[in-house]
């Protein structure tokens, strides 16, 4: 029998797990965080951006001490065809306001910092350990099994990431389906800070976020991204796993083609590849939401699929942090009442329902379905590019009125399709 017992064992030291660990340890609970990687963040990946609001509420002004890369002050959406691009830039002072700002991050650094905060608060972090199974007693989760070792706790938080085998073992979730997850692939390309700032038109320390739709995924559902870090760029692609089976190209080939696109190539010129990584991303939102809690156990972050899929971008870290916070609040109450039953832990779901997490997930619930429309990744970028070509390319052939140009191109997609998709898009949001 285990000789030691914790109030709470957290499996996984990502943003969700470490946030919960930090808050629980701060409240005086005995917390053990078990991490599979050799250090927190060693197995994690993000495209690159953390929206600050949820962590800001917990650790105010965290960005002044945490290893964040750059504050994003410039957003760009680019529609790509094989040889052309149309971009829309957004710059606003509002991107600079507290709680509204976002930062580019690299997880190896950021996750270590956050896990360190949990340790400083008194949580015990055990890295390099894989949790193989859960301990059950009378149908209730009572701890974890790691190799030969068993460890008991009043409650276990599963923060073990997108492919949470433990949530399956706890009966909270079924195996992932290919259309519920995307694969994200990323290169970190090193460039001097000054070059990055010049290339992207940024002041010192400021960052840019760019997303790409169209040719970069060869018409498949997904998109490209580029985030500026301090001394590097995070450049990558996200696409639905189910689509990959039919793809002519492999993931690395697609990334290579993306890198050699005439629009991307000058952005990464003279950069040095320092890191290549890939990861699964849960992207079915509410449509894949597991049971979030049961007797003695709850599931948070990516493990619970708490990721908002906006088609060409995905957003999860701020939701992960909020879910870790909600779980910790539920546990603190459970501890006061010495009741870790499902009925008591249901408070976690209540807190999530009332927070932006579930409200945003609901908002975007129909969005994945709407995005599963190849026209969005093929015809529409082409349409926009064609209109701009007509506007800007002057070769001596007689011009036509703009209205006609636009209509001509729109007819190629089909006006009915265009209206239908526009209506669906509005409805989905």
């Amino acid at each position, binding site marked *: 029998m285990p000789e*030691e017992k914790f109030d709470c064992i957290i499996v996984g030291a990502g943003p969700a797990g470490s946030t919960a660990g930090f808050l629980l340890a701060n409240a005086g609970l005995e917390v*053990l965080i*078990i991490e599979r990687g050799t250090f927190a963040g060693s197995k994690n990946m993000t495209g690159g951006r953390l929206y600050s609001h949820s962590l800001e509420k917990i650790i105010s002004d965290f960005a002044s001490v945490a290893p964040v890369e750059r504050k994003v002050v410039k957003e760009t959406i680019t529609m790509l065809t094989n040889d052309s691009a149309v971009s829309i830039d957004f710059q606003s002072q509002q991107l600079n306001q507290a709680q509204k700002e976002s930062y580019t991050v690299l997880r190896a650094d950021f996750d270590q910092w956050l896990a360190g905060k949990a340790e400083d608060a008194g949580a*015990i972090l*055990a*890295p*390099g*350990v894989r949790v193989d199974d859960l301990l059950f007693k009378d149908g209730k989760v009572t701890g974890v099994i*790691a*190799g*030969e*070792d068993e*460890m008991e706790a009043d409650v276990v938080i599963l923060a073990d990431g997108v492919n949470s085998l433990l949530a399956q073992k706890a009966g909270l979730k079924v195996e992932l389906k290919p259309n519920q997850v995307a694969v994200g692939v990323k290169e970190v390309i090193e460039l001097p800070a000054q070059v990055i700032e010049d290339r992207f038109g940024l002041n010192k320390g400021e960052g840019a976020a760019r997303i790409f739709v169209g040719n970069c995924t060869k018409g498949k559902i997904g998109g490209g991204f580029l985030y500026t870090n301090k001394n590097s760029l995070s450049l990558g692609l996200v696409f639905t796993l189910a689509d990959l089976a039919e793809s002519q190209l492999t993931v690395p080939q697609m990334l290579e083609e993306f890198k050699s696109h005439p629009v991307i190539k000058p952005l990464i010129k003279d950069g040095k590849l320092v890191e290549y990584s890939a990861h699964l991303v849960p992207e079915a939102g509410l449509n894949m939401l597991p049971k979030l809690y049961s007797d003695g156990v709850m599931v948070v972050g990516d493990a619970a699929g708490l990721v908002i899929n906006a088609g060409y971008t995905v957003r999860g870290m701020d939701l992960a942090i909020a879910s870790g916070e909600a779980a910790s609040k539920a546990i603190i109450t459970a501890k006061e009442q010495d009741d870790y039953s499902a009925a008591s832990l249901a408070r976690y779901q209540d807190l999530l329902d009332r927070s932006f997490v579930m409200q945003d997930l609901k908002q975007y619930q129909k969005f994945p379905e709407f995005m599963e429309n190849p026209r969005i990744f093929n015809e529409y970028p082409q349409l926009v590019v064609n209109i701009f070509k007509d506007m800007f390319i002057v070769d001596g052939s007689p011009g036509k009125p703009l209205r006609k140009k636009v209509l001509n191109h729109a007819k190629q997609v089909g006006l009915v399709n265009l209206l239908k998709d526009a209506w669906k898009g509005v409805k989905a949001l």
Partner: protein
Amino acid sequence: MKKVVACYKWVIDEADIRVEEKDHSLNFERAKYKISEYDRNAIEAGALLNEEKGCEFLAVTCGPNVEASLKDVLSRGPASISYVNEEWLADVDSSVTSKILAGIIKKIGNVDLVICGEGSSDDYSQQVGPRLAALLGYASVTFVNKLDITEEGIKVERKLEDGVEVLEVKGPAVVTVLPDINKPRIPSLKQILAAKKKPTEKISLKEIGFDINASQPKLKTLSISGTVMERKNMQINTDGLSIKDAALKLVKQLNADGSLA
């Protein structure tokens, strides 16, 4: 009960060192530290003697920034760690290192067996073990790939270039071990948790009677740079060359380079 001490060095993980293209200088910016590879084997050998033979097992180290190593090492078996943590130790040679380690081991007292890795993953001078033996007045046994402790003494197998030498050592000894002596463990959850409760002892230079002025390093590192294999970066199949022509061109090029000789 025999008392066993393992020495280890906390080194920069060579996987994190980058060689700069322009001048082949080393960039340590992103470097993390780790237990020197063969010292993991030394620690594991001590842990096994503790678990299988009931020996008392301790670890010692010295260097800059070694406090970061304590939890990791303690989860691998030793009951405690005695260490000297000094920034200036970053630039010392094995004569200084071995003097400090010898001082710590003398302070522990009555140590029957000292286990070191054959060489460190950074400098690989292979000197600390034999120097320690000399300073402690212990027997010195190198290239050990089997180690046992019995009532009669310490039994070892030395793996030599073309043979195996089996030795029995009377009295205390310093052995340096090879990587195939054992497979270092991946600490289990309980071992990691237990490590957090184990004691460590920070030792000052004064306590071990170490006089900095009398023990200046005798070696000074003048420069250190990486070796880089220069590549020609030639593409053979350019301009729509057929596979056959490309193959011929490749053979011609390899011949010209002397690669097929």
